[in-house]
């Protein structure tokens, strides 16, 4: 049985303290009574109350969720298509350009992506708002989705699909009944990734949006620039809580699914 050596235990403790302490402090001080954020004046939840009365924040949160749901769904469809093209379509004219356009946005600085999209929207005279943010987010998120999905497709046994075709499935049926269920976990994690990328994005949304739409990160940004505020601490705590709950649930669900699959495989092996 292996144990932690003292050196490894220390470096892990210090490392994780560094990663988590700032957020822990943020959470604790969101319950601070005082308006002066760095001076503790007793426990209170009043900043949460103020947050829920602040319409600007609530509107921004609603816009952000709308944008994230639409863009991540679109990005998942387009990104999955792109992944199938990358892995399955073989050679076609312009393939190099295609894969270049899939990988380039992953390393492109956000300021450049944002600037270029804004100039496009202005160039074709499109009104900027929720719709343009959705277009912008879909474009960069679909690249992340296609990377996630294509890594699963590469290891996928193609003979399963061929068997379905031999047994009389149409290509679309074969995709829906055989391929999709097998790659589903990677499609779902692609969607989740696209969703969080969209929730999180400040720079691209600032460029792509007009006066009619403000997302939550844009709202946080404009108030954070003026300094630390107790309301933002409360909002951050809520966001950290939602993410932590989501990630922990997801990992428990996938762990359960893995054990179930193992059990079924074992049962199938016994039958055979």
């Amino acid at each position: 049985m292996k144990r932690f050596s003292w050196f490894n235990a220390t470096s892990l403790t210090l490392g994780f303290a560094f990663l988590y302490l700032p957020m822990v402090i943020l959470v604790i001080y969101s319950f601070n009574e005082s308006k002066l954020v760095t001076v503790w004046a007793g426990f209170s939840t009043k900043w949460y109350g103020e947050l829920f009365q602040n319409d600007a924040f609530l509107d921004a949160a609603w816009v952000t969720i709308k944008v994230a749901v639409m863009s991540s769904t679109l990005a998942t469809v387009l990104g999955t298509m792109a992944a199938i093209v990358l892995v399955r379509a073989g050679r076609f004219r312009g393939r190099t350009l295609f894969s270049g356009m899939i990988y380039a946005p992953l390393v492109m600085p956000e300021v450049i992506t944002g600037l270029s999209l804004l100039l496009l929207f202005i160039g074709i005279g499109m009104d900027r708002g929720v719709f343009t943010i959705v277009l912008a987010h879909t474009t960069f998120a679909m690249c992340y989705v296609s990377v996630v999905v294509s890594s699963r497709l590469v290891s996928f046994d193609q003979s399963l699909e061929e068997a379905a075709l031999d047994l009389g499935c149409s290509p679309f049926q074969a995709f829906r009944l055989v391929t999709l269920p097998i790659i589903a976990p990677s499609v779902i994690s692609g969607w989740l990734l696209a969703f969080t990328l969209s929730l999180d994005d400040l720079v691209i949304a600032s460029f792509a949006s007009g006066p009619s739409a403000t997302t939550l990160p844009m709202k946080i940004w404009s108030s954070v620039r003026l300094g630390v505020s107790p309301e933002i601490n409360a909002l951050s705590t809520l966001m950290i809580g939602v993410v932590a709950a989501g990630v922990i649930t997801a990992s428990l669900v996938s762990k359960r699914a893995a054990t179930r699959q193992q059990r079924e495989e074992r049962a199938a092996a016994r039958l055979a």
Partner: protein
Amino acid sequence: MRRFTLIAIPYAWLLALFLVPFLIVFKISLSDLAMAIPPYTPNLDLSTGWAGFKDFLSQLDFENFIWLTQDDLYWKAYLSSAKIAAISTILTIIVGFPIAYGMARAPEEWRATLLMLVILPFWTSFLIRVYSWMGILSQEGYLNQFLMSIGVISEPLIILNTNIAVYIGIVYTYLPFMILPIYAALEKLDESLLEAAEDLGCSRMSAFWLITVPLSKQGVIAGSFLVFIPTLGEFVIPSLLGGSKTLMIGKVLWEEFFSNRDWPVASAVAVVLLLILIIPIILFQRNEQKQREAEG
């Protein structure tokens, strides 16, 4: 036919919303600033046919790029971004390596949990993670309160709005990008190699330097690119944690566009930034490919 549709839809999307916008940036970087909407000239006017197109081409020039070399704000900003990105990359290695090492040497049943703990911050808002340091580093912040209460300092340290705060912010937010590839390299390392070295008379220290470090080199290189490339164009961290003296090109581009409303110069800044980034990106891809070949 079906195959054509499958290729055409994502292809058209990327052409329209990735390639074309970039060509527009390139075109505007060759244009002149004008008091108009949109604030640049010339505009492509196809109503006069071919002559209009030729006229349009003849009005484009490299003036904005020459301007970038003449005003020292810009090349100083590029240099200082490169410097900040390089120093933070090194700091991230120094902080990240021991954590990755500790994870790879941890008992088997702990590793999945540790891995999840490293990935979890990825899912939390980047903006909030940067923001959380503002309360810690400010003059009356938690760090100064703590250090003064234990009597290490008598005057508060000024950290927020300096480059030190920018380094802390970058190391903090990009640390998982460094830990994960190093961990992946270290986890594959066969421990019997270390035992063999020790049997042959190596001290543990020299076994570490002669075996562990060279075998984790690929992970360190991959992590360095993953930190260096995005930090070069970083905007949020220098704006929130840095001061007026912190010069980074992402911030310059933003201000050129939103405050000065000089679109042609902002576009030229973007084009040059991209040209600078192409070098590390190509090196990174070569490195990845080499590694894949070595494994395959």
